[in-house]
């Protein structure tokens, strides 16, 4: 019996090449197409990158606090927790910025994966995309995917110099940073939401109901 793969490729090639095998040239052309860059139409970004990023993030129901210097991360976090009446019980991720933060000793800081009962998570984004106000995460042991999806309040720290203009710039950055493309790349644009009840948006469907960006000029 012919296996499904062979049978499918035979069917495809019967239509596409009259049953002939593809030439080496055809293979090369498609491999080149896969690697080619600069073909897509890029949207025009008219504002300053950081301003556009913040505006787009706010437009998708996010909140922003722009700060200068690492020292202000604790202050920004405290302010957010206080405004939202959250306890100082935080699951905190790692990263270039967060590893340097000294949290007040009286706060409960958990360096672990998030669980279903965790309320507030602080994590560091890999990059931001000005085009859509998107935060980009590449999960690691220190910044696991559960941090992005399980908390109710997600405080995201991002170095403003890591904001890129468009998605295309992000792909180039990842490919230059990673020899092997990461197992997961998560693009987050605003809080979790659903319109499944009466086609009306409610926030906090499965992921965070609130996403607070702490944008830092290091």
């Amino acid at each position, binding site marked *: 019996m012919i*296996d*499904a*793969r062979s*049978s*499918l*490729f035979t069917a*495809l*090639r019967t*239509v*596409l090449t009259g049953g002939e095998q*593809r030439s080496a040239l055809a*293979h090369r052309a*498609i*491999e080149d*197409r*896969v*690697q*080619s*860059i*600069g073909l*897509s*139409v890029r*949207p*025009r970004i008219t504002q300053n990158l950081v301003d556009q990023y913040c505006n787009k993030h706010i437009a*998708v129901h996010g909140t922003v606090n722009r700060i200068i210097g690492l020292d202000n991360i604790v202050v920004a976090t405290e302010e957010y927790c206080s405004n939202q009446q959250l306890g100082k019980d935080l699951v905190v991720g790692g990263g270039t910025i967060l590893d340097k933060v000294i949290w007040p000793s009286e706060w409960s800081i958990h360096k672990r*994966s998030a*669980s*279903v009962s965790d309320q507030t998570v602080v994590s560091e984004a890999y990059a931001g995309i000005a085009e*859509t106000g998107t935060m980009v995460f590449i*999960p690691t*042991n220190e910044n*696991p*995917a*559960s941090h*992005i*999806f*399980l908390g109710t309040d997600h405080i995201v720290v991002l170095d403003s110099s890591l904001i890129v203009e468009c*998605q*295309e710039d992000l*792909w180039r950055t990842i*490919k230059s940073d990673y020899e*092997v*493309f990461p*197992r*997961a790349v*998560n*693009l987050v*644009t*605003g809080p*979790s*939401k*659903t319109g*499944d*009840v009466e*086609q009306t948006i*409610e926030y*906090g*469907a*499965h*992921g965070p109901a609130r996403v607070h960006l702490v944008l830092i000029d290091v």
Partner: protein
Amino acid sequence: MNAASTEFRRRVRMALADDQLKQAMNRAKGGFVLKRQKAIAEFPEFHQMRDAARDIKDHVLTNLDLYLEIYEKKVLENGGEVHWARTAEEASSIVEDLCSKSGARKITKGKSMVSEEINLNEKLEKSGIQVIETDLGEYIVQLASEKPSHIIAPAVHKTRDQISKLFYQHHKPLGYANCVSERKDIVQQARSVLRNHFVESDIGITGANFLIAETGSSVIVTNEGNGDLTSTLPRMQIVVAGIEKVIPSLEDLSVFLRVLARSATGQEMSAYTSLYSGPRADNTYEEGPEQYHVVLVDNGRSSMLGSEYQSMLRCIRCGACLNHCTVYNAIGGHAYGSIYPGPMGSVLTPLIGGYENNVDLPNACTLNGLCKTSCPVHIPLPDLLRQHRTQQQRRKLSPFTGRLIFMIWVYLVRRPHFYQIVLALPIWLLNRLGRQRGVIKWIPLAGGWTSSRDFPCPSARTFQREWRNQMRQFND
């Protein structure tokens, strides 16, 4: 009239008489359309993106074998496995086999239309595996033992009151004693119930909006985040996708993402767009699945390639054609009797489910063309529906009365002189019937029209006769 046709008409009658459905559809109607219009107006490059998206899809389809090979190679390099399925039955059996061999008892699922297409839930449940849909809309229809009625809004046909009662019935035994009726509370209760399922799940199954050949990634686009919890927390991830989902590169993905969310929900970007490219890197990595499987489904797609229906393989399942369809908005999705309703479903369903079983779907259309103009990848849906109708006529699948009318029509239009004589009589009669009031309230054999609207009174003479008269006067 065959059984499928009778069944379709029965469902349509039921849908039109269903006040709850009417209420839900009226509430939804126009929302997606207006949001889409606004999003497009704010994005000047939209039409360029649309053209680019169509061109990318067409390029991939003419080289589909090559792109699938590259995609497969990358997934294998990333440590994943690729499975190929010719039919729906093969696809669901592959997934069932993976689940059974791994000893899975509970499975969470992200919203996946192809898993509906292959009847995956039924297959797994027959094997004693608990399947939990995690997209809120899918979860609602699962509780109601129904199928989705819209490809991106599965529970669009449900009113809040119906959802509230459904939740009370199913969640009360879980300890949720109160019947929640506010939207916010309904969403929060679903979140609370489903959280434990995510954590307890052995396997996560999702579909894929796109498969990227360059990186071997499967891409899921959601607003809730359920697809990501499904892809991240269980020890095995299974992605089920049609073979046409492959695209060349990350940059091509950007083109599609820019048209997908705008066309579907009027968003610039959905809340979550995630790329998954294999199992977790190694055993020291705490999160992510140990195994990553992709099941690629043909189920009639390769037969569409090279045919007059090839452009249907461009479809990115945004739902814009459903949102704009007057018929869909009147009868809802279930009346179609297919998991793919609306214009895209009326084209696709006969191709994957056979003409005989879906004879009425291509005819459930006014051919107003709104689906074509709203399609982000330029699928000529009305043309494809006409093509289906032609096929039905040729295969004598359409109802005899309809075929007879068309045969008479064809006979007449091929004999212009005779046609004019034959047409003059009914026109004269209609004019006599309605000339006093300007409209006709009742026409023999046309009760379907006159029962709900007046028929405008035609002129006493046909256009051609009038034209001849005027030309004669002009020449004199």
